[in-house]
């Protein structure tokens, strides 16, 4: 062979003095950023517990769950949803992941100068409908208008509160070896819906976002007395990032069987064409439930009686082996690691 002229490559000089888009994609960079920022907030309660919401004791009979989330999705409307719908469901679901039923939401709008009032009304109507479906009231809000370059942007922040029974502790620290890992439905529909709207890829029939409230599903599990150790909705970063995060925060390993993970034929088709891995695709109506080892079957039975859990599936087990690592068993008897995404997932180019 002709000699390799040099086998070197310069290292990047981007020690991230500025924020990049990948800092917001729910993957490794975002976790690095949080690890850097959280210590700057010394008052932060339970800094080491990464959860979708905070639990605040308010009295002997009730704890308060409190959460906030900002919504910046582009485009504002996509098959199966819009920014208003996910602004409600996202926050409702963050509360649900604490075992709480959402009681009230706030709604803060940041609107760029030039934004269409009719579009704004359309988004508000969608929020109202989503709130009605989720059984939550939007009780307070704020509106700010900012200078805009393109005049087309709208950002929404919602915060939510809900009540939790003090007897319920749903947190990664309760995860133990042997626990069952259950996913509530098929994955990837939200990401594909947004991607299709974003890049004019159209599918027939359209793939719609799975955005929906998960409160009823969680409450059904609680009422059935299922020992839920942890819950997490698999939003940004998808199922894989969610499970890696739980593996890391619990110190346990996650062992999942690939073919047990429900993925619709359509989403699989899109993933095949674009070279995407569905386990990294964002969801807006899909949760991971980690339940006590012996309760896998009963949890599945309960979940499948609720609309949001019809396609619930046992996908794996928590293990004391490979702590902090998610491993996936493939179809050929071989296994692979599944790390957290380190940037945005990108379609392949050849």
């Amino acid at each position, binding site marked *: *062979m*002709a000699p390799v002229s040099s086998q070197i490559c310069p290292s990047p000089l981007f020690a991230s003095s500025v924020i990049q888009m990948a800092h917001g994609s729910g993957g490794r960079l975002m976790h690095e950023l949080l690890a850097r920022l959280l210590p700057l907030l010394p008052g932060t309660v339970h800094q080491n517990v990464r959860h979708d919401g905070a639990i605040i004791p308010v009295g002997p009979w009730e704890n308060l769950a409190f959460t906030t989330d900002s919504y910046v999705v582009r485009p504002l409307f996509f098959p199966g949803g819009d920014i208003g719908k996910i602004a409600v469901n996202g926050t409702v679901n963050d509360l649900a992941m604490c075992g709480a039923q959402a009681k009230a939401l706030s709604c803060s709008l940041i609107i760029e100068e030039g934004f269409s009032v009719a579009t704004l009304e359309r988004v508000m109507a969608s929020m109202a409908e989503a709130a009605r479906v989720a059984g939550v009231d939007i009780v307070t809000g704020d509106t700010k208008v900012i200078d805009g370059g393109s005049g087309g942007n709208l950002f929404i922040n919602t915060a939510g509160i809900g009540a939790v029974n003090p007897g319920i502790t749903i947190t990664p620290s309760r995860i133990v070896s042997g626990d069952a890992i259950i996913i509530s439905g098929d994955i990837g529909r939200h990401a594909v819906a947004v991607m299709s709207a974003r890049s004019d890829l159209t599918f027939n029939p359209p793939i719609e976002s799975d955005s929906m409230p998960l409160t009823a599903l969680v409450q059904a599990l609680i009422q059935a007395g299922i020992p839920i150790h942890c819950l997490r909705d698999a939003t940004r970063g998808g199922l894989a990032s969610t499970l890696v995060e739980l593996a890391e925060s619990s110190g346990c390993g996650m062992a999942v069987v690939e073919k047990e993970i429900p993925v619709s034929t359509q989403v699989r088709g899109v993933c095949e064409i674009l070279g995407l891995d569905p386990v990294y695709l964002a969801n807006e109506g899909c949760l991971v439930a980690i339940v006590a080892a012996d309760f896998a079957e009963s949890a599945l039975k309960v979940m499948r009686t609720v609309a949001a859990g019809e396609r619930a599936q046992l996908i794996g087990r928590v293990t004391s082996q490979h702590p902090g690592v998610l491993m996936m068993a493939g179809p050929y008897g071989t296994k692979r690691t599944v790390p957290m995404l380190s940037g945005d997932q990108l379609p392949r180019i050849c």
Partner: protein
Amino acid sequence: MRFVDDFRDEELVATLALAIKHAMSKPRRIMEVCGGQTHTIVKHGLDQLLPYGLELVHGPGCPVCVTPIEKIDAAIKAASVDGAILCTFGDMMRVPGTTQDLLTAKAHGADVRTIYSPLEALSIARDNPVREVVFFAVGFETTAPANAMAVYRAKSEGLRNFSIISALVLVPPILHKLLDTAGVERVDAGSDRGVDAVLAAGHVCAVMGLKEYHRLAESLRLPIVVTGFEPVDLMQGILMCVQQLEAHQYRVENQYSRVVLPHGNTIAQRIVTEVFAATEAGWRDLGRVSASGLSLRDGYLEFDAELKFPLTADSLCSNHQRGLCRAGAVLTGQIKPPQCSAFAKECTPMHPLGAPMVSSEGACAAYFHYRGGQVDGASQFSDLS
């Protein structure tokens, strides 16, 4: 999905693994050219299903990985041209240039856009008539036709604000360079074997056909099997290689006949030939190879961003960590990614030292992603049932 599922059939994969074992009489090294194939192999652990003594060597077929740093720097410079919009495929965004990558340029205010098709860049140019739209064209023969079509259309529409940076490269010339004399030289002592056979990239051949590979097989006295990307494809391609080797044959066989025609896609070839001509091209860490790249023909030079704007880099490679990354050795199959001392230490997908750790087709990314940094896969695993 049935079509895909057939080529992932568990029993068929097991049967082929057994057939390979029975067919093989001595150790062999087979290079899979395409990064897509590398990913299938590592993701599904196909290498672990192969008999002892059959080693898969990962080839140079990752377009992002082989793009030379000068081209990345040129793209970053193009992004900083006043009023310019730089469009490229997502994978290119995170490949380190000399001082930064395109994502960092974007974070600092440059208008850098990820697109899915070169024709999207064209519509961005139409929608922004007062801005310069530069498309950073990267890829092998597979992506060349779509790039050619974008330039061809730009010319017929009279679009003056569209241009491309061509980092398009061709597979046969680099294979010839890598495999011509004694096969791939091993950097680790103890083995004198080079590459015994090649799995050629199916999609490249779908466009270009088999003609050049016949020449290559003949001149290198090397079995070449044009192979697809699914587990069954790869296992069958490997079996076909082993069978040729055992029979002392060296010819081109087409495992991927459901996609690849012997003459390729002549319509695609015509548009490529209309717009591009073969030219000497630089390959990251592999030097310059004659007639291994595609540059715009005379009639299309007005669309060459490197002629239109001053994009030549001022300085190259001033980095103190220079030397850690062994992308060249990985791209030529001389080492497996975990044998690089920086692998999973200084070099991770989050802080890549080289393109093979960035690209979704890069071998380093495949090992990092699917093996957690292990060469032989993750051995520790509990039962899942």
